[in-house]
């Protein structure tokens, strides 16, 4: 009983992540690579690695932007790294904010970069919260058989339906602190 309720929660969480553009198709690729045995295994591992990596990069960026003279090449290199790893795990919003960040790097705009880092950090924290919830729930849900492939099919459908709805009434906000 409890497992079914949790499974519903997990489904709802994942479908909202897709629907809001927090994650994209690449995240689905990760789910497809999950063990058939149903252990959290791969997705948990790669998501955790990504989060640790992103955390580290964001700290480095904060430190670089605090310097009296900012080394924009180094900043750009880090942002490029983060953009790459976020693309690899399907962290779409983080990826987009990284792209914005890179443009500001090109213009060597310190204030702009600081703002961009804030955006990146916010998106990353939001995503990380959801990942953490997901990973906490998954072990319980996966005690029984859990077909990720069927599930992602459902998510994709919902995602598409919501996309169609959104065309009728777009309502995107970028959060600022």
């Amino acid at each position, binding site marked *: 009983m409890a497992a079914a309720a949790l499974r519903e929660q997990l489904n709802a969480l994942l479908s909202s992540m897709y629907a809001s553009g927090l994650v994209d198709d*690449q995240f689905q690729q990760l789910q497809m*690579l999950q063990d058939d045995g149903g252990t959290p295994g*791969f997705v948990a591992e790669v998501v955790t690695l990504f989060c640790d*990596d992103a955390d580290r990069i964001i700290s480095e960026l904060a430190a670089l932007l605090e310097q009296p003279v900012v080394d924009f090449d180094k900043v750009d*290199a880090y942002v490029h790294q983060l953009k790459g790893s976020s693309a690899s795990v399907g962290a779409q919003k983080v990826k987009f904010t990284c792209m914005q960040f890179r443009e500001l790097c090109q213009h060597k705009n310190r204030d702009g970069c600081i703002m961009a880092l804030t955006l990146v950090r916010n998106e990353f924290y939001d995503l990380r919260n959801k990942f953490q919830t997901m990973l906490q729930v998954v072990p319980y849900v996966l005690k029984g058989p859990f077909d990720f492939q069927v599930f992602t099919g459902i998510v994709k459908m919902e995602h598409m339906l919501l996309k169609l709805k959104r065309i009728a009434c777009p309502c995107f906000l970028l959060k600022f602190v």
Partner: protein
Amino acid sequence: MAAVATETPFHVLAVDDSLPDRKLIERLLKTSSFQVTTVDSGSKALEFLRIHHDSSTPISLQEDQLIYNQEVAVNLIITDYCMPGMTGYDLLKKIKESSSLRDIPVVIMSSENIPSRINRCLEEGADEFFLKPVRLSDMSKLKPHILKSRCKEHYNQQSDGNIDESSSNPTNSSSSSSDNSSSSRKRKAEGDAEILPKANRSRHS
């Protein structure tokens, strides 16, 4: 032992400085039935390749070395382009400059779709260029390159008469399977470029 070469899975060496990316490529490859070794830099890749492909092995260790080489022979290298220190392009060049390594197919991955970059890599001898993020469907493009390079090796071994005579002599490191690539690469370096015109792509630079 030597005869089972065709049944051992192909071994791919994956090079990427990003940890999440390494995990992903490793999983993609394992899911596609490849054996995988991952390293985080071009220099570590070369180190790994030298240990497992260096044809100048001491004769006394030959028998063990033979078996060892067969077990970890690298059949394909897949590398990220943007890496600190040695880029994927630099690594590609070093591989193509090495007589023992140049026949290993190389695939470059990059998150940036820059045609001049792609062309440069292909001209330097890369067999394929993947745009990141890499997906499961990309994995099916790898085996053809491995098989193609094995055909070349096999063709090389057949066209070179020595190999059959020396099959009883372990020091020539020739086994009946076409899998033992170190000796054939050595022979190849001795200049049979005419026999296989496509073997070395535009080495003119």
